[in-house]
């Protein structure tokens, strides 16, 4: 099941790094993601962009995680030759990530994202 069934996201740039915030739809989903959506998992998922490092920050009061992906923007906003030089698409990309999400986490879902 894709991450987008239990979370929403937003991404952006800082220099040649990107941050991808993932916000769980409910506390149970947050607890599940805390275990399954590790920095290592996210780093593997974004491996084609060659992150130098991935740090996961927990934001329990918002049921959210902030992932900082260093060096994934091939030079960043002004230099990158990629169409997505500023990491605008990475939020949508992470929501496609497949996880073994239990059905009961969908019960509190606010909206299909």
């Amino acid at each position, binding site marked *: 099941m894709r991450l*987008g069934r239990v979370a*929403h*996201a*937003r991404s*952006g*740039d*800082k*220099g*040649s*790094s990107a*941050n991808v*915030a993932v*916000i769980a739809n409910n506390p149970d989903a947050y607890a599940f993601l805390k275990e399954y959506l590790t920095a290592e998992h996210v780093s593997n*998922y*974004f491996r*084609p*962009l060659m992150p130098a490092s991935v740090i996961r*920050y927990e*934001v*329990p*009061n*918002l049921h*959210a995680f*902030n992932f*900082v992906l*260093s*060096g994934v923007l091939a*030079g*960043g*906003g*002004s*230099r990158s*030759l*990629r*169409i*997505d030089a500023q990491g605008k*698409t*990475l*939020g*949508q*990309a992470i*929501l*496609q*990530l497949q996880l073994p999400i239990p059905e009961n986490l969908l019960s509190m879902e*606010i*909206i299909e*994202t």
Partner: protein
Amino acid sequence: MKNVLLIGNAQAFWGDQMDAPARLLTQQPDLDFLTLDYLAEVSLSIMAIQRERDPEGGYAKDFVETVKSVAPLLEKDSQTRIVTNAGGLNPLGCAKACRRALAEADFGHHKIAVVTGDSVLAQIQESPETSSFSNLETGDSITTVSKNLVTANAYLGARPIAQALAEGADIVITGRVADPSLAVGPCMAHFGWDHDDFDRIAGATVAGHLIECGTQATGGFSTDWLTLPDPHNVGFPVVEVHEDGSLVLTKPPGTGGRVDLRIVKEQLLYEIGDPGNYLSPDATVSFLDLSLQQVGENRVLVSGARGSQPPDTYKVSATYREGFMAHGMLTVYGRKAVQKARRCGEIILQRMDEAGFKPRSANVECLGTGDCAPGIAGGPDENELIETVLRISVADPDRNTVARFTKELASLVTSGPQGVTGYATGRPKIRPVFGYWPCLINRCDVKASTYLPDD
């Protein structure tokens, strides 16, 4: 003293909706402050090019038009004051142009203040070996690029803005300041907070952070975007900042978009690093005790910001020349469109190579296949796609190499596969490339100053 301050932001970047400031003021005439943010990371390098052509330029000229459009609304009983970083590299030039424009429109009595001192290019060029000037991301010494530096500006804080407002300015024009400081300055001036009242300043910093990207706080760019009401008229954000540093994020009545917990959470975490240590020149802010509550339709209360002493350095954004680039696009339609498009990309690079113009870097993308995030989320079966947009990008220190690329692309219209189309826009434009160099400077080496230029 009012115990709630209304601050609206109607410009998220240079190129945002031109009519937004006047519209927001019309929709929300009781605003105390209107902030307008024009500067992204490398905006100042674009202004540097403009200033080379016109020594009087180097600022966001759009703002002069904005001042004209809002001047009639600032008359009579309006208490709204404007704080903007439109000054770019030349806040004084911007102020002069605004005053001319206001005088011509018979609104010449507005007091305009400028904040200067953010440019630290001279300091860096004098002693580039200083360790704090090393690249924050790579650790490289700035000596590797110091000959090609174009701009270097420290992110100033709220204090000079607050000072300008205390001196009675109606319009404050700055160069580079930290984006949230555009809102923190008015709060400090109005509430009279001490400089070390870090929790309250942290609250105002959160307010500024939430509104700095305009409609991103009211539903733009959100995951739920497709469900927004009236998406053609998404309201620009307004924060009601309380004396204790808590705030309500909202938008004018009758506008589209939405302010809900999901959207506010997304914007809180937009373009940040460690949520426990959000660095700003006014306070280091922790988001980890923030509490969010929907307190009405399109009204979210944000409280619990914690602040501490900011670093004794300012962040600096420097830019340097790094050659040229161009992007060209062609559409390919038909059977095996993606295979044909990828081959077209190879042909262009091969032809350049054989002509002796091998670019330092190049990139070929086939839009429609998932190439925005290449190799990540999976995409459609490429063989099934009936069309794709081929995008070829080339960069090189030598302008001639990039120019050669822009002249090669069109030949595919006749030598490429059947179904090549979409070449109506002509040759790709050659653009200068500016590298981005984030670093630090000691606060004591930066002299921010505020003044109200004489007429």
